[in-house]
């Protein structure tokens, strides 16, 4: 019934991997709470929270999340899991980034004017990428001819990178799906990975019930409790996409 129904806004990456399809029925089974989620860009998800249209958020953009909580829009932000980002590019690696650190790779792109495809959509991934340019001491090459901003989701962005023989930053989950779509032989390969800065942290946030009278804070709290609980964490760890482990639970 409507009283026992929770609305969540989340990012497309969690939804597209199929994690939620596996996890959420368990939540309903355990708690009797029905949950609906809408998958959108991180920015829009936060906006829906700010406008009190959802009860809980599941996103991956820590700096924006902190701002969100600090502004009083959300409470009880809890980290739940992470995965990682990788830099991918054509197997020929014209920019020569293979085996380099992330910062070095970013400078190579700049130097070689190698086509770099950015999501350019203010998503968690995009924010991470912008952070990487800055960390390498570079400006975001907004108007550079070789810097392609798609304003689209991860998969489309990878596809555009492949069409353009370019590089891009992607979360591993999407890359696994992408390579599976190409029967394990995708036109773009992982060239840089494992760097600590490439960590991709997911969190849940309850929309602030003091600001939003309609928010079902009690149900939202139950959800946070559940997903940070052992059973859910276990299931996250066991989730496999095409046989590969995707998310690492890290609720504290």
């Amino acid at each position, binding site marked *: 019934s409507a009283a026992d129904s929770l609305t969540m806004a989340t990012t497309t990456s969690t939804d597209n991997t199929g994690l939620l*399809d596996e996890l959420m029925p368990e939540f309903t089974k355990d708690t009797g709470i029905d949950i*609906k*989620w*809408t998958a959108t860009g991180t920015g829009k998800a936060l906006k829906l929270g700010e406008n*009190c249209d959802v009860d809980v958020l599941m996103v991956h953009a820590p700096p924006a999340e902190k701002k969100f909580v600090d502004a009083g829009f959300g409470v009880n932000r809890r980290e739940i899991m992470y995965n990682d980002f990788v830099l991918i590019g054509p197997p020929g690696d014209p920019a020569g980034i293979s085996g380099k650190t992330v910062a070095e790779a970013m400078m190579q792109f700049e130097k070689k004017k190698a086509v770099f495809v950015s999501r350019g959509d203010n998503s968690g991934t995009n924010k991470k990428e912008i952070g990487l340019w800055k960390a390498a001491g570079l400006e975001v090459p907004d108007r550079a001819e070789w810097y392609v901003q798609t304003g689209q989701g991860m*998969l489309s962005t990878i596809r555009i990178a492949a069409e353009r023989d370019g590089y891009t930053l992607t979360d591993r989950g999407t890359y696994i*799906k*992408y390579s599976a779509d190409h029967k394990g032989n995708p036109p773009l390969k992982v060239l840089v990975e494992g760097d600590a800065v490439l960590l991709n942290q997911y969190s849940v946030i309850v929309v602030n019930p003091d600001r939003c009278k*309609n928010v079902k804070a009690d149900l939202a709290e139950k959800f946070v409790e559940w997903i940070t609980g052992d059973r859910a964490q276990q299931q996250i760890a066991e989730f496999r996409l095409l046989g590969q482990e995707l998310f690492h639970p890290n609720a504290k």
Partner: protein
Amino acid sequence: MSFLLEGLIKAIHLLLDMDPETYSAVWTTLQVSSGSMAASLLAGIPLGFFLGYHDFRGKRQVRIVVDTLLALPTVFVGLLVYAFLSRQGPLGSMGLLFTVPGIAIGQTILALPIVVALTATAVEGLDRQLQFTLVSLGADRLQLLTGTLWEARFAILAAALTAYGRVMTEVGISMMVGGNIKWHTRTITTAIALETGKGQFGMGIALGLILLAIAFAVNLSVSFLRKRA
């Protein structure tokens, strides 16, 4: 290219296997589009008649505005409706956000200018002798409306089908107002967008074909209206 064929095969499978997700989206689509079509025809045809039939000051200006509204971007409409239906919006208490009626409201706004503009054009295109004929046979204002519309039925059918096409295929409003919530507000088009976003092009094509099949069935079932007489 291969995903085109794959999509065709998948479409057949989805339909034959009674895939519940697909059927849910089909059902939602049908509900939403019926609601918005009913509302936009009910409001739009009389408005269009009025606009096409009567001469009044500023008529040309009104026509330009209506024609401009043919270019209402769906996301824009989605945002507008969202602003009203959002919990903090003036109609927030009605709880229409992320619901089927919510989407239908948005689609009605989208379809209305099409119905109005094309109905007005159809009515304007009629022989003015028709008007004299109906009035002289004793029609009252309502009968004048219905009699005129029946004479223009081919053009009004075309208006309705054009609006129907617009409503069936729009994504922006369904996404923004409906939220693309599985089992609830996921329509065929938002499902296509989702699947395409996931790289499931074959699935996108399959769903697109299903949507066209529905449109075909609807067209077939109204094609009797095309008969002369």
